[in-house]
């Protein structure tokens, strides 16, 4: 079998970068300097040999480290060189991203603090909430539809609705693609549920402050930032966890007895770090919970993290064999974070999850070992783990090619990118992001509304079933026929000079644009058979003249094909 060297073209990136923008926004990008200051010229990444041919190498990278190729992306990456493109994605702060930043201006809640959001979107009157719940339970009121976003336009649900819309806009139009993929990955790893009471107001700050800044940073910083964030403290109840037997000194609950809450401690060990088989015991969970007592929220004031010394259990603790001497105070939690993030089980858990996301649902042990080693060697640096991952032979193997089923967010974003969808000028109810997020929700992945702390799953078995397949096909039809409000696709433009009177030419052009020729023989044969059927051909008005190709239907069939469901 022929083996290819990856990324042979190692070039100075200067001029090529200028060509990497969204094609239709090229004029807006001319203000960008050709060579961002300090960007390394050439590449430090050495990619392994692979049997994937150069075309597939590029597509593989664009569908794993990005939300799929837009028209022209394959050529741009090839010209730049794979290794250089990956290097660039590993340093997102150096990539100009003005188009999407301008778009995000339409979502004001993204820039507001949690305290400001509580002011802007006051908590509904509790009596009214009770009345509404009673009406729902008795079958009298209409259903609440916050998750689909209908009710999410006014009132507190608007916060998560705008955040989801922004996520989709970034997934489709941001140049910092790998960062977006990792923000989604880490959010699900450290999931919070926007449907749980106060989290509704905190979820936007959570993504902005705890997840996004560390997406390619240190794992320990992610653990620390999430552990101290009000959204996580509230979601997993740690803000109320206090030393056992504490008598509430004042306030409405004065004189009542309070104590430990194990919720955060358990998920920290089970999900965030060691993993369920990571070797901890129930006693470790209790000791961990003791260590984090007092890590709380200034709930009535700033709505920010607040350490409450009076609530902390200052006794000696023992976590995973490490002694924490008495009197550690707020430092006890920091000590536990050090212990768990340096634990080899954590390296393995994080490596396995990354490999599952970027390689395959059941990743080979070799790639897990390699990424885990990178974790241990660098004290958990995400960028180093990603470098280990993309330089692993397993990442470039035939077994990894097209091995992942796109989850709903990936399907929606990659379809919009494949057809070079453009956002309309509408904002709010009609914005592109809003409607793309709603489509994602219909496909089964309501962003920020995964209730369990595992977040949305990352394997095929969770995402492929009859109901969601229909939703995928319906989304393909809506997008291709320009029936998704706020989003416009220009199929005529994509087809260029392909002869509309020759359906096969139109089909081949569509397959080239969306699947870059990587289509199974059977899918192509089936599609060609449709061309001679009415599905692919539109009769002209009054049956005059030669039949015209039904481009919308054909595009919908391609986006709805089994081939497009994989990445």
């Amino acid at each position, binding site marked *: 079998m022929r083996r290819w060297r990856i990324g042979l073209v190692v070039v100075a990136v200067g001029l090529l970068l200028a060509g990497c923008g969204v094609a239709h926004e090229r004029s807006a990008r001319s203000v960008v300097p050709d060579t961002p200051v300090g960007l390394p010229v050439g590449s430090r990444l050495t990619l392994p040999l692979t049997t994937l041919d150069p075309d597939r190498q590029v597509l593989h990278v664009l569908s794993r480290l990005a939300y799929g190729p837009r028209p022209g992306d394959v050529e741009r990456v090839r010209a730049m060189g794979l290794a250089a493109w990956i290097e660039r994605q590993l340093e997102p702060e150096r990539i100009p991203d003005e188009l999407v930043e301008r778009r995000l201006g339409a979502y004001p809640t993204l820039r507001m603090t949690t305290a400001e959001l509580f002011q802007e979107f006051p908590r509904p009157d509790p009596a009214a909430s009770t009345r509404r719940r009673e009406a729902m339970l008795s079958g009298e009121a209409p259903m609440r539809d916050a998750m689909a976003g209908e009710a999410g336009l006014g009132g507190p649900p608007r916060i998560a609705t705008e955040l989801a819309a922004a996520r989709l806009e970034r997934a489709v139009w941001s140049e910092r693609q790998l960062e977006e993929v990792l923000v989604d990955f880490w959010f699900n790893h450290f999931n919070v549920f926007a449907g749980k009471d106060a989290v509704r107001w905190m979820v936007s700050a959570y993504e902005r402050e705890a997840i996004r800044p560390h997406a390619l940073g240190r794992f320990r910083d992610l653990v620390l930032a999430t552990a101290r964030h009000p959204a996580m403290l509230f979601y997993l109840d740690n803000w109320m966890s206090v030393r056992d037997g504490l008598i509430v000194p004042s306030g409405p609950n004065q004189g009542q*007895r309070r104590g430990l*809450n194990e919720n955060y401690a358990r998920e920290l060990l089970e999900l965030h770090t060691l993993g369920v088989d990571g070797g901890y015991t129930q006693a470790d969970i209790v000791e961990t919970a003791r260590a984090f007592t007092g890590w709380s929220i200034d709930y009535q004031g700033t709505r920010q993290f607040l350490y409450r010394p009076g609530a902390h259990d200052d006794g000696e603790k023992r976590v995973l064999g490490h002694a924490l001497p008495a009197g550690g105070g707020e430092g006890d939690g920091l000590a536990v974070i050090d212990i768990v993030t340096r634990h080899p089980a954590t390296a393995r858990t994080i490596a396995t999850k990354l490999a599952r996301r970027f390689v395959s649902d059941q990743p080979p042990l070799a790639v897990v070992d390699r990424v885990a080693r990178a974790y241990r060697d660098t004290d958990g640096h995400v960028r180093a783990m990603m470098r280990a991952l993309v330089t692993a032979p397993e990442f470039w193997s035939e077994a990894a090619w097209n091995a992942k089923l796109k989850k709903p967010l990936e399907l929606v974003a990659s379809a919009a990118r494949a057809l070079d969808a453009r956002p309309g000028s509408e904002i709010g109810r009609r914005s592109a992001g809003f409607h793309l997020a709603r489509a994602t929700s219909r*496909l089964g992945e309501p962003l920020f509304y995964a209730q369990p702390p595992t977040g949305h799953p990352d394997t095929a078995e969770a995402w492929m079933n009859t*109901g969601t397949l229909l939703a995928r096909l*319906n989304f393909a039809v809506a997008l291709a026929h320009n029936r998704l409000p706020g989003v416009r696709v220009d199929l005529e433009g994509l087809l260029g000079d392909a002869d509309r009177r020759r359906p096969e030419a139109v089909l081949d052009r569509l397959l080239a644009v969306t699947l870059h020729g990587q289509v199974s023989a059977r899918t192509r044969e089936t599609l060609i058979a449709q061309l001679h059927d009415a599905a692919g051909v539109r009769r002209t008005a009054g049956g005059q003249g030669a039949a015209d190709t039904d481009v919308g239907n054909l595009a919908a069939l391609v986006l709805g094909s089994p081939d497009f469901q994989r990445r």
Partner: protein
Amino acid sequence: MSGYVRRSFVKGGALALCGLATGTGIPRFLVRSAYAGPTRRRPKVLVAVFQRGAVDGLGMIPPHGDAAYYAARPSIAIRPPAAGTPETALDLDGFFALHPALEPLKPLWDARQLAIVHACGSPHPTRSHFDAQDYMETGTPGVKTTRDGWLARGLLARAATAASPFRAVAVGPQLPRALRGDAGALAMQTLRDFDLGVDGSGTGSGMDARRAFEALYASRGQDVIHGTGRETFAAVKMLKAADPQRFEPAHGARYPRTDFGEKLRQVAQLIKADVGLEVAFVDIEGWDTHAGQGNERGQLANRLADFARGLRALALDLGDRMEDVVVLSMSEFGRTVRENGNLGTDHGRATAMLVLGGPVRGGRVYGRWPGLAPEQLFEGRDLEVTTDFRQLFTEVAWHHLGVPNQANVFPGFAPSSETLPGVLMSGRVS
């Protein structure tokens, strides 16, 4: 009417098969029914309700006769029964009671259609939601490599009543692990959206695009995508013919306008439309009450109100059809006996499961009560499991769904008729 509808399904199935003649990929449900053969019998239906997040069995079915219950829960215990006093526990047998929010289920208890299995749970002591849910759904506690679910294995082990892709349906965006496997279960979010919206381009080519999509998925691909696709198109056709949405809730039933209520309403529609449904699977979330659980009112009470009103509406709506229906509630584990420092409860061991329906020997609480005194607790903190959930699930599989006793529904577990709880009429006489 129902006879006509059923015949149209058999026809729909044959049509689907013709449509697939180009490939060898035949939907799994048709492969199965090829040797099953048609029958006229109305299928027994199991409605499995998973209370995800670990329901507090001691709040749902309070053991008011156990003095240790009130000692362990100074703030969140349910007030003992006091006839005529609102917001007190509803006595069942002098020892156990219903949470007052379960009041809609009391008439079903009185009519002996509701049984409770208390101190029920998994032999595996994990307190991880996700492992415990997986173990309960695969039916193999402690074994993580089991790829299919207990309900899928149960369905595979017995002949289908009718050839239908609706034999096993999960209402929700995902197929639960209990139904994953080779039984060809399907998931649907809503009946309304379970269609291909291809028309509307104004060209009249909608039906042709539908056929084109079907052709794309009809090929012989053996992966999850192709398999799902073949079943999807067969199901869409049959659903169109059956039109279950024409069935309005009957007998004055009013489903709560909640996720759970909407799901149950659609389960009832599928049952009434005679689409060959044998297992329906419905999730209800929000049971992980670590803080502010509440007592007669509050967080748990609100979830229980949704749960009870939904089940009550289902039973009312189905009327006589409940003779063929068993509702089985389950949850991955129970919660700590003592309330925690935040007036909530942490992850525990045993919980209570409800069995509801015509075939149920109801009006009884089943299982040995291990007691709540500190020395009686598992690891000094949790209600001990005295009924392995597999005993209860086995009884439902054998005596309701008709799964043959020799089928290996719970690998590594050897139940016998003598050890089953006896909650069903057709089961062991106790």
